[in-house]
């Protein structure tokens, strides 16, 4: 099984496991090809064609950027294997893909990998039909609009630009079903190609038309029963008559069953579920589906009839608990569909007509806590569900619309022992035979989701682990805890040979950490998928898994058209990088309201002189940086200044600095080791007594000290933020001092004003280094005009 579609259609937020769609991942990419030029950070924009027939070999062109050293494709699902890869040229290469006869139909996810990186996650489609290339448009006007003849049972691949209309003629017998569906919007990562399909008779009479569909969202789908023997024309175009530059599509045409939803939309894991596929042109298609033994939040099931399979699935859930099916009439609490089964349960129904509302009755105990989740839109039902809970008498207790995206969600604590009802309706009062839904009432369950966050807006850059041989690579890891807390440990499995992961604990309340991967110098250049989990340090059993969201088709407003949640991450060992970096472990902690310079040392290959950009990958709470720093061209050492705010959490954190450089063909990223950074409370506080000084005069500024943590030896204290040409010599203090006096000298030209910019900085010696800490911000020094100066002024006026 290797198919996945987006779950959080409108939600740009981190994924929630119970609502997530999972991409099955497996497989170790197994290919080796001599690497050519060094070209880091590859990207993959698309395949041409973007699919192939099951049980065949297909040659596809892979297009993207920095692919010169392409090695192969890393398929997340089973059944697809790359048998050869051509030399790359002009940002593209050819890959021969062998598709097993039992490969799952529909969407597969894949990344390109090169000797120096792993590219974007993209989709590839396995079809039951032979591929047919869209005929090139004839040059002469006479034949320009002639439609292309295709047999029923084909997957056409082509493209549409601007106002193009691609027409295809199929021949059908009376009563024969003509089905068509498009993969369009999903194939253009940075453009919106919103296609529409029209089916018409030979005389031009339009029989069916579809632009968007609940099943395929922005992509059209239709099925129609031929009214007579004859030729029928399918026309595909952009719904705005302005297809983007690429406008690539796959069009499945055939007489395959094409239901739009399935009822019930799930069942108990492992059971033989009797279902009805709904929405096909020939009517309801009954079937029995063997659900997987393990619960599955989104299980693809393909309608089959007369030996023909739909090219893309309908969606079911396999849950650990049984179903309750609705029995109409059930439009109020009094007639609610009853059950004597205990919770957890799944209530299934169809909002069958306009204004329909479905009630289910169940028993619950006081103080039980449940997640109440509707699955409708996520399973591609057109229903925009509203969720309500009633008491037995029909009084509404709770209601929700859209907490789970278009699907609704409630967190519900049972107020008393007794019978209750859950009710489902459409937000706009709509309904119809395909408006299926499934309400799952489940106890709150601890879960932990792990993923690599987006590092650059609208880009998949640095969302894979690419470790150069004999080097390190650091990544941020995001953690989302549901119904659980406490410290966690990260653990990776199925990493490549020679690659290890080093991660500190994920402290309670922290949702982001930096982890460092290291590859031995002997590691082989390769790529594969791997799993990462976060488990409580106390050994409590909590389910944890990768839920890595990837926007396949983004748009400017951070609401992707098409998002996939992958259940595995990608790791690669890359060719050596031209430099390594090491963080010089600080021997002292950083104090609150203090600062520190992190020193980073680079080991460069002899021919690499370029600038190395540095950044603290993860800033613990209250730790600030300038965002970026650098090791200058040709140099081997750089500094990353950090500061700790007054309320930085006093803990030990794991930090790492990442370094990047332009290899000439893309950015190369490496990191330092994972190092400790401890934040401690300040040693000294205090206040600067307000005072004044005349221009050209001197005064004493007294600082009252509050000793907070005793320190050894003498600490240098400086009065900083002084106005122009005002000086104060540094002083020394010990842990016993209660005040310190600075002699302050003002120049004749020091600006007359009330200066509130003074503060103290103290350098506490420890382990041969200094802990820098500031206090008394906002200290005031007033500079008055000197009397002499005044007199001179008067003289001048006279």
């Amino acid at each position: 099984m290797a198919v996945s579609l987006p779950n959080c259609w409108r939600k740009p937020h981190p994924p929630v496991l119970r609502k997530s769609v999972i991409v099955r991942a497996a497989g170790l990419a197994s290919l080796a090809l001599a690497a050519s030029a060094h070209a880091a950070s590859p990207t993959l924009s698309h395949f041409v064609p973007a699919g192939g027939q099951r049980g065949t070999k297909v040659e596809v062109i892979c297009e993207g950027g920095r692919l010169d050293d392409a090695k192969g494709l890393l398929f997340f699902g089973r059944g697809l294997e790359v048998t050869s890869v051509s030399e790359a040229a002009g940002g593209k290469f050819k890959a021969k893909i062998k598709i097993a006869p039992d490969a799952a139909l529909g969407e597969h996810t894949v990344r390109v990998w090169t000797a120096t990186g792993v590219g974007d996650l993209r989709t590839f489609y396995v079809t039951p039909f032979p591929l047919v290339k869209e005929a090139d448009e004839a040059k002469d006007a006479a034949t320009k609009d002639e439609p292309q003849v295709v047999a029923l049972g084909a997957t056409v691949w082509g493209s549409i630009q601007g106002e193009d209309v691609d027409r295809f003629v199929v021949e059908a017998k009376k009563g024969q079903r003509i089905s068509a569906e498009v993969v369009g919007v999903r194939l253009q990562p940075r453009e919106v190609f919103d296609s529409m399909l029209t089916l018409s008779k030979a005389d031009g009479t339009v029989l069916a038309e579809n632009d968007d569909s609940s099943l395929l969202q922005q992509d059209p789908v239709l099925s129609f029963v031929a009214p007579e023997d004859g030729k029928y024309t399918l026309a595909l175009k952009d719904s705005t008559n302005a297809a983007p530059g690429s406008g690539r599509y796959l069009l499945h045409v055939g007489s395959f069953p094409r239901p739009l939803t399935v009822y019930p939309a799930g069942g108990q894991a492992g059971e033989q579920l009797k279902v009805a596929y709904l929405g096909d042109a020939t009517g309801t298609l009954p079937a029995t589906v063997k659900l997987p033994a393990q619960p599955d939040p989104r299980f693809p099931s393909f309608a089959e009839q007369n030996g023909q399979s739909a090219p893309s699935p309908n969606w079911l859930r396999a849950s650990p608990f049984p179903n309750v099916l609705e029995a109409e009439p059930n439009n109020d609490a009094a007639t609610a569909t009853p059950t004597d089964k205990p919770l957890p349960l799944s209530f299934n129904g169809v909002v069958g007509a306009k204004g329909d509302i479905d009630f289910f009755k169940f028993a619950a105990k006081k103080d039980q806590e449940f997640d109440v989740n509707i699955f409708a839109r996520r399973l591609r039902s057109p229903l925009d569900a509203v969720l309500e809970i009633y008491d037995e008498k029909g009084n509404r207790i709770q209601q929700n619309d859209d907490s789970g995206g278009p699907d609704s969600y409630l967190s519900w604590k049972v107020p008393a022992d007794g019978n209750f009802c859950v009710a489902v309706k459409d937000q706009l009062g709509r309904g119809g035979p395909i408006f299926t839904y499934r309400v799952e009432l489940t106890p709150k369950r601890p879960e932990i989701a792990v993923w690599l966050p987006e590092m650059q807006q609208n880009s998949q850059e640095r969302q894979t682990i690419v470790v150069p041989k004999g080097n390190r690579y650091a990544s941020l890891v995001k953690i989302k805890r549901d119904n659980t807390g406490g410290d966690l440990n990260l653990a990776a499995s199925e990493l490549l040979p020679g690659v290890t992961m080093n991660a500190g604990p994920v402290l309670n309340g922290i949702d982001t950490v930096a982890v460092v991967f290291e590859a031995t110098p002997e590691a082989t250049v390769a790529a594969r998928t791997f799993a990462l989990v976060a488990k409580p340090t106390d050994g409590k059993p909590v389910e944890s898994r990768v839920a890595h969201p990837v926007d396949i088709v983004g748009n400017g407003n951070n609401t992707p058209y098409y998002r996939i949640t992958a259940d595995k991450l990608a790791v690669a060992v890359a060719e050596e990088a031209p430099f390594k970096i090491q963080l010089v472990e600080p021997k002292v902690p950083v104090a609150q309201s203090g600062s520190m310079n992190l020193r980073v040392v680079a080991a460069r290959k002899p021919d690499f002189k370029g600038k190395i950009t540095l950044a603290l990958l993860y800033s613990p709470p209250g730790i600030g940086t300038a965002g970026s720093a650098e090791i200058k061209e040709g140099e081997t050492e750089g500094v990353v200044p950090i500061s700790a705010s007054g309320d930085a959490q006093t803990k030990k954190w794991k930090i790492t600095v990442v370094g990047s450089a332009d290899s000439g063909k893309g950015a190369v990223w490496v990191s330092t080791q994972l190092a400790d950074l401890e934040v401690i409370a300040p040693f000294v506080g205090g206040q600067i007594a307000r005072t004044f000084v005349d221009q050209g005069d001197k005064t004493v500024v007294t600082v009252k000290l509050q000793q907070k943590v005793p320190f050894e030896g003498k600490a240098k204290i400086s009065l900083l933020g002084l106005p122009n040409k005002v000086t104060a010599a540094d002083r020394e203090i010990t842990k016993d001092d209660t005040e310190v006096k600075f002699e302050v000298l003002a120049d004749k030209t020091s600006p007359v004003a009330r200066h509130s910019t003074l503060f103290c900085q103290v350098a506490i010696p420890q382990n041969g280094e200094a802990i820098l800490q500031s206090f008394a911000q906002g200290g005031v020094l007033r500079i008055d005009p000197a009397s002499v100066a005044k007199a001179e002024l008067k003289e001048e006026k006279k």
Partner: protein
Amino acid sequence: MSDIKPVTWLDDPAHFRRPSRREFLYAGLVGGLGLTLGDFFKLQAAQNATPGIVAPTAVAKSLIHIFMPGGWSAQETFDPKPYAPIEYRGPLGSIDTKLDGVRFSEFLKDTAKIADKITVVRSMTHGEAAHERGTHNMFTGYRPSPALQFPSMGSVVSHELGSKNNLPPYVCVPNMPNEFAGSGYLSTAHGPFSLGGDPASNGFAVRDLNMRAGITPERFDRRRNILSTVDAHFRTLEKSDALDAMDSFYQAAYSLVSSESAREAFNLNAEAEATRDTYGRNEAGQRMLMSRRLVEAGVRFVSMTYGGWDMHAKIQDGITKSLPPFDKAYAALINDLDQRGLLDSTIVMVTSEFGRTPKINKDAGRDHWPRVFSVAFAGGGFKRGQVYGSSDPTGSEPDADPLSVENMAATVYHQLGIAPEKKLMAPGDRPIDIVRNGSVIAELLA
């Protein structure tokens, strides 16, 4: 602390807005060139009501408004914070300037040398953290209102001071930068005349100033005669002030097209190569040089933009790339105006719609921050060599002498000899102050 929240790139709808049909039409009709010359002069005479307020004596004859679209960072330009914690200070260093104790960004090397000729305001403040609203503030002197389209300062100057030396009074370099640079409730005649091309590009020429290729002066005269015949025919059919006025509009346009000296104002090639180099052979340099030529020739108000300063990410890279050309050009402009004796009669103001967040964000950039930012004035009676106002140690709030949009506008108008309290007539016979509740800030002035 203020209740103003930093606005990230994602928070500002302006980043996602597609041009509406209305804007498209607007841009197509007016934005591209501004107005055609005929329209321009035709509309200009439409308003001349004067509500009897005595105008102040003009110190400045003209103004160059250098606008930094996107919201430029004060921390990385005129108001570095070398003592602030690193996440406030940012990645860049600072340098000494010609003013004792005043430091600018390390990339304002040339500007540092002319710091004694300018007034830097480090306490500019308003509350609008979205691009469009902030821009509206800085171009009109008003907070945006759903009820009224306010005229830009350039349009008000055009309305109040009118044309000089056959030149349009209000010119945008290279184009009208945003919808708030327009004439608002004033007649569109007071909209900007736009160059329509970038002075920095090769083959730059201002549209409409020269006869179309192949049109000889004789042929042009024939065309004018035909037009007069048509107009004369209309005159026999209808009596209208607008018709009566037509001739003078055409005359104004003809005189611009046929006046070599007026046309020459737009001819950047007339500048010495050395001068062009001094300003810098780039957008900042050539636009500022063009601006100087225009005010020298008699344009009242030149509005120019340079760069994109909306640096939500990698501000170090952005500043490193964009600031040096500005620095070189700006210093060249101030020196050039000064050497030509034009600085005292020309206000040069550098503004932006807002500043940027005190703290560096996770993308090594800074987000929108209108609470305090820096602007600069030079010439036209503004004090030479001072820093007015200050921001607090982290650049979060004004610390001393906050300068409001209204006070800034009032001071600028005052220097140009326009009474800020004067009322202009908006549609519906609504008298609207040129600046509402604005005070002239004497400390800014020499």
